[in-house]
């Protein structure tokens, strides 16, 4: 079975631009979470979606937004990119909303110049 897939794998953008990252969960998983991992740090929670509704939001500015589609795939959007947005963005899916282990994708490496 396919795991969590993310695209693109690498991305280079300049300050002020906008970016869209995509994630397809494991088949049958209804919850998708997004995490940001800055080099040398642990992942930080950005969003969680379940059944197309936002169920959790981390301490990130409004420049960050996300959505989940009827097929449970998800997009993370970041507007007005800053240098500090350079990071590995990880998507994780889980079967249900509560008490369900997260399965992580390989991530999208975003570099903002």
């Amino acid at each position, binding site marked *: 079975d396919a795991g969590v897939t993310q695209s693109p794998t690498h991305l280079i953008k300049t300050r002020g631009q906008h970016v869209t990252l995509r994630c397809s969960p494991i088949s049958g998983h209804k919850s998708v*979470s997004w995490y940001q991992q800055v080099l*040398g*740090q*642990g*992942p*930080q*929670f950005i969003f*969680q979606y379940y059944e197309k509704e936002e*169920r*959790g939001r*981390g301490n990130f500015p409004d420049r960050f937004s996300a959505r989940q589609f009827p097929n449970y795939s998800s997009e993370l959007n970041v507007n007005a990119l800053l240098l500090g947005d350079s990071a590995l963005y*990880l998507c994780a899916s889980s079967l249900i*909303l*509560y*008490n369900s*282990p*997260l*399965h*992580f*994708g*390989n*991530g999208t*490496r975003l570099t903002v110049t």
Partner: protein
Amino acid sequence: ELKVEQNPLFLSMQEGKNYTIYCNYSTTSDRLYWYRQDPGKSLESLFVLLSNGAVKQEGRLMASLDTKARLSTLHITAAVHDLSATYFCAVDGNLGNTPLVFGKGTRLSVIA
């Protein structure tokens, strides 16, 4: 606010030696996860610890959870080079749907 602290953050150990990584967390939780991350790669789930006193072992790694002390340990036995990676613990709160909070990670290097 849930905080998760790991120590040490960096660990260089010789092959064949034993060592323990510690994970402390600040609020009540009975669900703790250990992940492994290789450079440039995603997170691989190692252990899920769901109750006080839980102990799980896989190969040379053994994880345990003490919810009263808010402490988990990851013990490495007779280290080999293939264990070189960054290890993260992650905790979620006991308030229903709370996201995982990760520690900063322990970068382990096993040398000959």
